């Protein structure tokens, strides 16, 4: 298979394009997923804008406005419509511009998309994908910076994916579109321009399988989405101090590959979970409690969570930068954990 360097954004675009080519039931809907380009009044404008990050750029040119639908500013309306369209046999891929705006359509997701299969006897399926954008560090304040992975992972009936690189993003989005169930697919805004090697041909990565991004035997670091990269950077520094960190990327948060994490902890004896989201009722606290349940005997010290704060994401750069766990903090946590030192919380 030929591979080449591709950005996370373009890998997602390619997954959408290939699945739309392969399956005429797949369509996109969201605010400005096409954009004003293509408006009949402006024949000169040929290419689409593709949303604020340009992720769906060009798709309208290939598939037309019937399959790349610019929604009005009405998330409740179009997410609800996607459920009906999925029942009707289509494969909707909705785009919510920022994860923070999911609140406006949350009822449709929580009470309908997630529950109707079970409630109607477990037979009818809802093959729906909701793509959205997570993460802080974009200087966009509290209503454009949240993660919210844990909120969706809490709800039975939803699959939740949050890839950390372009290769995983393409393979997992293809799986999400082919999946018979509702999938929340979370893209980190600070990863869009990051490149990795991505095969040209379509490929599917199974939902629910985590990935070891770096092998080590001194300590297990589980990173959540962008924090996988933070953990990998920290692991390089730790290596120089003789600490061999194993870095795990769960990739899917529901279902969660807890076995993979436990196997690693059984090998290393230490677990640090790095998640830029808030600490309480979080992915980090969930992983921590499951590891305690399943692999307590292997632990050589307490599990630690390095997370964002229990505050909304602030705007001002020094505050926002402090909010997000840093490479240095990961290094500090890991070294202290291995030495058995008491860790002073950063807040």
């Amino acid at each position, binding site marked *: 298979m030929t591979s080449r360097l591709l950005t996370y954004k373009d890998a997602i675009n390619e997954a959408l394009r290939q699945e739309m080519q392969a399956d005429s039931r797949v369509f996109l809907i969201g605010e400005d997923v096409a954009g004003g*380009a293509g*408006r009949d009044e402006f024949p000169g404008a040929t290419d689409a804008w593709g949303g604020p990050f340009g992720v769906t750029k060009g798709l309208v040119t290939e598939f037309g406005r019937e399959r790349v639908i610019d929604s009005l500013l009405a998330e409740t309306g179009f997410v609800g419509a996607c459920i009906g369209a999925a029942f009707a046999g289509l494969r909707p891929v909705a785009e919510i511009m920022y994860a923070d705006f999911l609140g*406006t359509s949350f009822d449709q997701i929580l009470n309908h998309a997630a529950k109707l299969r079970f409630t109607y006897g477990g037979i009818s399926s809802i093959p729906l994908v909701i793509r959205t954008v997570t993460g802080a560090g974009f200087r966009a*304040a509290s209503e454009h910076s949240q993660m919210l992975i844990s909120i969706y992972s809490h709800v039975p009936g939803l699959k939740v994916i949050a890839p950390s690189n372009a290769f995983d993003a393409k393979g997992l989005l293809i799986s999400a579109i082919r999946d018979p169930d509702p999938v929340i697919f979370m893209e980190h805004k600070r990863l869009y321009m990051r490149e990795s090697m991505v095969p040209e041909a379509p490929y599917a990565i199974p939902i629910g399988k985590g990935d070891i991004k770096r092998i080590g035997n001194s300590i297990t670091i589980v990173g959540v989405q962008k924090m996988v990269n933070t953990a990998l950077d920290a692991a390089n520094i730790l290596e120089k101090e003789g600490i061999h960190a194993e870095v795990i990327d769960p990739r899917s948060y529901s279902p969660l590959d807890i076995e993979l994490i436990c196997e690693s902890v059984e090998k290393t004896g230490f677990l640090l979970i790095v998640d830029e989201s808030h600490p309480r009722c979080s992915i980090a606290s969930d992983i921590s409690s499951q590891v305690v349940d399943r692999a307590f005997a292997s632990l050589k010290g307490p599990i630690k969570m390095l997370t964002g704060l229990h505050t909304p994401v*602030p*705007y001002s*750069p020094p505050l926002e930068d402090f909010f997000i766990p840093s490479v240095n903090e990961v290094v500090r946590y890991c070294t202290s954990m291995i030495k058995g030192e008491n860790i002073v919380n950063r*807040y």
Partner: protein
Amino acid sequence: MTTDSKWGKETLRQMLLIRNFEETADKLTLRGKVPGGMHNSSGQEAVAVGVMSALDPKDVIATTHRSHHHTIAKGMPVNIVMAELFTKATGCSGGRGASMHLADVENGHFGGNGIVGAGVGIAMGAALGIKQMGHKKVAVGFVGDGGVNTGRTWEAVNMAVIYKLPLIIIVDNNQYAVETFVERVTGGNDIAKRGAGFGLPSFTIDGQDVEEVHKHTSEARNRALAGEGPTFINALTYRYYGHNVGEKGQYRTQEEIADWRSHRDPIDRFSAKLISEGALTQADYEAMINSVAKEIEEAVDFAEKSPLPDVSTILDGVDSGLLGARK
């Protein structure tokens, strides 16, 4: 109708102040002085100033992600607004909210919102509070032509009608929601008719004519104070710049922008009227432009010299102190 000279000059100065603020802040954003982005309201000054000049300072507003013009017209000093955009501790929100989250609740500015469609509901609640407490004032909720497609906006309009609340809903209709042209997403193509369907006085007005905006808002305010309930105003206007700083979309023609700028600019129109009526001389006008520029320069200087918020304050204010961010 001739314009009262004193009112006219104040109104014109306000519009000039907003225009200069926006154009300055836009450049500073491109230079990285304002982190992130901002939503430039250039072209929409008459809506903000026309509405606010008809209000009493104690009246309440709640607004949107594009609210610098509403905020300055409501009376927040430009240095405080600029400092917030610079994310400085001296900004109205201490640097935590910036462009989309300008607020001064104590002085009747119930805030901008990053989530489109939030403002009218909050303003409706403010109007409910005003009514229940028997205050003699009104609330104004701003929404865009995009936001007017959110269901919750209409839930709030209906409630305001049912409860006869002292509310004025203003559609700051700049005709685009990011790249989406209003006519493509407005069934029936008449936003005011939608309002009328809820049984309240509902108007489409020229949002580039500051006096027309002022007049309609005053009448709405009088009705509200007389206990006659809410009014819906769809003010047609235009945004000159991209949705966010630096955006150059292909969704409208340069000719369209040039047409609005050259034939319907609210500042040009109003200054020409004042000059032709003798209420303002060309020399007055130039002096006004210079004094506005100086005020904005000082605001930038203030913002530049102000300190960033201290990291040790990051946990403050998550709640009133009961839970605390540490627990």
